[in-house]
């Protein structure tokens, strides 16, 4: 495999709140190759958004990256100054957020906002900047793009607004885009259009993506590999198809089994008992242990990631263990 564009090692981001230390992200590692889409799945509070913010250096006090390394195209991001990071942000790595109303400035036209984003990193003539903006808007599927540059965000529908946000994120052809639930607020038919386009864009432009979502079905239709987060850790990672067909971590297995799509209509769904733990008072050992039906005394120690050809899981008693020899 070629050198990954993004390599994250043992990243930990903690928040030092008055109530205690919240270990929002606690030692995660993954690599991302050129043009690859990775799905980052988890429930609310599992640390997936904080992971995205950490990659862009957007974690604000009381939070900070306490450990680990983020290498983007070979450059270590965690040791860069704010200024140096700012040059890279938007140019080499950019982010798309869930709510495009909150990301776009309601007082500026789309054209003005795209111009600002271009000017932040490049000196282009008016004409060249406009051409770039039109090209990208067209690429993300906005009809009559050059006329729409004069429109304000409120003149666009939710789906169109999100496309504008995506076009702005793509302006400088970043190596990596972090997309944080960008289709969650959209209707299914619009979501499908955008997912489809993002897949093509990643292939055409070679931009790698981290697609953060709580929806397994969405990421499974988009990402070639998955990382499942629970309580600040990646508890399982691997190729999408393998991971879904043959989940090893009991949490992943439980998540898949709890989806209505996997059950016969009208029958009770398999449910994971309990709720996600508060990150302030995590039980010692495996954080999933209190909800897990495979728990033993051994789970009092936090399991390390077990790697096995391209995939990994953090569990002492993985599902389907009997398939293995000598494990």
């Amino acid at each position: 495999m070629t050198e990954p564009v993004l390599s994250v090692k043992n990243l930990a981001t903690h928040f030092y709140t008055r109530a205690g230390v919240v270990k929002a992200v606690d030692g995660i590692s993954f690599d991302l190759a050129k043009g690859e889409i990775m799905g980052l799945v988890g429930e609310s509070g599992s640390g997936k958004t904080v992971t995205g913010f950490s990659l862009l250096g957007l974690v604000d006090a009381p939070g900070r990256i306490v450990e680990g390394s983020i290498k983007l195209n070979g450059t270590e991001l965690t040791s860069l100054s704010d200024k140096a990071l700012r040059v890279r942000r938007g140019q080499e790595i950019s982010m798309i957020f869930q709510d495009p109303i909150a990301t776009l400035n309601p007082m500026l036209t789309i054209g003005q906002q795209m111009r600002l984003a271009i000017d932040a990193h490049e000196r282009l003539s008016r004409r060249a900047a406009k051409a770039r903006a039109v090209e990208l808007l067209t690429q993300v599927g906005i009809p009559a793009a050059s006329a729409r540059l004069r429109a304000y965000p409120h003149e666009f529908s939710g789906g169109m607004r999100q496309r504008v946000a995506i076009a702005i994120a793509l302006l400088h052809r970043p190596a990596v885009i972090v997309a944080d639930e960008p289709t969650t607020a959209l209707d299914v038919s619009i979501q499908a259009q955008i997912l489809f386009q993002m897949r093509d864009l990643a292939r055409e432009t070679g931009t790698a993506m981290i697609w953060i979502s709580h929806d397994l079905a969405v990421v499974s239709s988009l990402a070639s590999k998955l990382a499942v987060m629970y309580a600040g850790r990646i508890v399982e990672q691997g190729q999408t198809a393998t991971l879904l067909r043959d989940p090893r971590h009991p949490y992943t297995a439980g998540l898949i089994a709890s989806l209505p799509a996997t059950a016969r209509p009208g029958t009770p769904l398999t449910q994971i008992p309990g709720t996600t733990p508060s990150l302030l008072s995590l039980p010692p050992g495996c954080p999933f242990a209190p909800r897990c039906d495979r728990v033993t005394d051994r789970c009092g120690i936090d399991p390390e990631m077990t790697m096995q050809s391209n995939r990994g899981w953090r569990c002492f008693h993985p599902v389907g263990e009997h398939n293995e020899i000598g494990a």
Partner: protein
Amino acid sequence: MSAFLSINNVSRLFGPNLTTGEKIAAKLGSKVETRSVRAVSDVTLAVRKGETLGLVGESGCGKSTLGRVIAGILPPTTGTVAIDGAPVMESGAKVTTRVQTVFQDPFASLDPRMKVGDTVAEGPIAHGLTTKSEARSYVAEWFERVGLDPVWVDRYPHQFSGGQRQRIAIARALAMRPDVLICDEPVASLDVSIQAQIINLFLELTRDLELTSVFISHDLSVVQHVSDRVAVMYLGRIVELGPVGQVFGTPAHPYTAALFGSVPKLVLDADELVRFDTIEGEVPSPLSPPTGCYYHPRCPLASEICSATQPLTQHVSDLRAVACHHFELQLADDFSD
């Protein structure tokens, strides 16, 4: 088919609330919005006793408005809703407690300054289902029924997680001993692992209490799981209605087919990325809906008649109806696959 919950020719319009000045300005030809939105347009449905009817559609299709009209929260502009022959509303006011609602957001639907036990007890006390002195044990019973610890009645909403709050909201609705339960996106704001718990609770309670229910959701897999029949809405109209297996299996309306096609599916045994179809374009503005069939600008089967006349609802079978000029084409297509 005997209808327990009957919705007859219900329409609901929302007009702009114009001030006198604006009305004059409009008369003088200034650009004041005077059009109204037909959020629900001539909907007729019959739900049998004990049946769960799923209501699906994209945002803005009128499913929540219809839910609110059925629940007696919003008066219909025209048409009536009746439970077992008795009207839900009379001259704009709700006159029955036999229909109750569970809303999407349990953070917004519970009073943050009231103990949850008091919230649940309020309705039953007001309507004489229990007395003030017995309210505590009455509520405790319902708490247990929905899987909450009865000692929690003295807590406030912020002390509960989203899933627990939704259980409280369900307890509040059921404590009124309704015959009909309207659930408006009850699991949409919950985490996946919690969704399953609430869906299971819903299935168990509707069966045990013999509730008739309308389950509104944009999540087709959830609707498919809990419903007996499903109604698909588009721009305020019901375009297809039928038993859930039939509608999901062989959709008769091209919109239904496209909607199901565009949902990302979890395919557990795929080696390649799953392809899914997309519907072209967006839902038109309900302020100025297209002529004829509302779906025709996006429809692959559209012909001249579709832009000219609105298709009537036709009964394909006893339980199944569709409003499309070309539903035979759509069905034929499916069977030839």
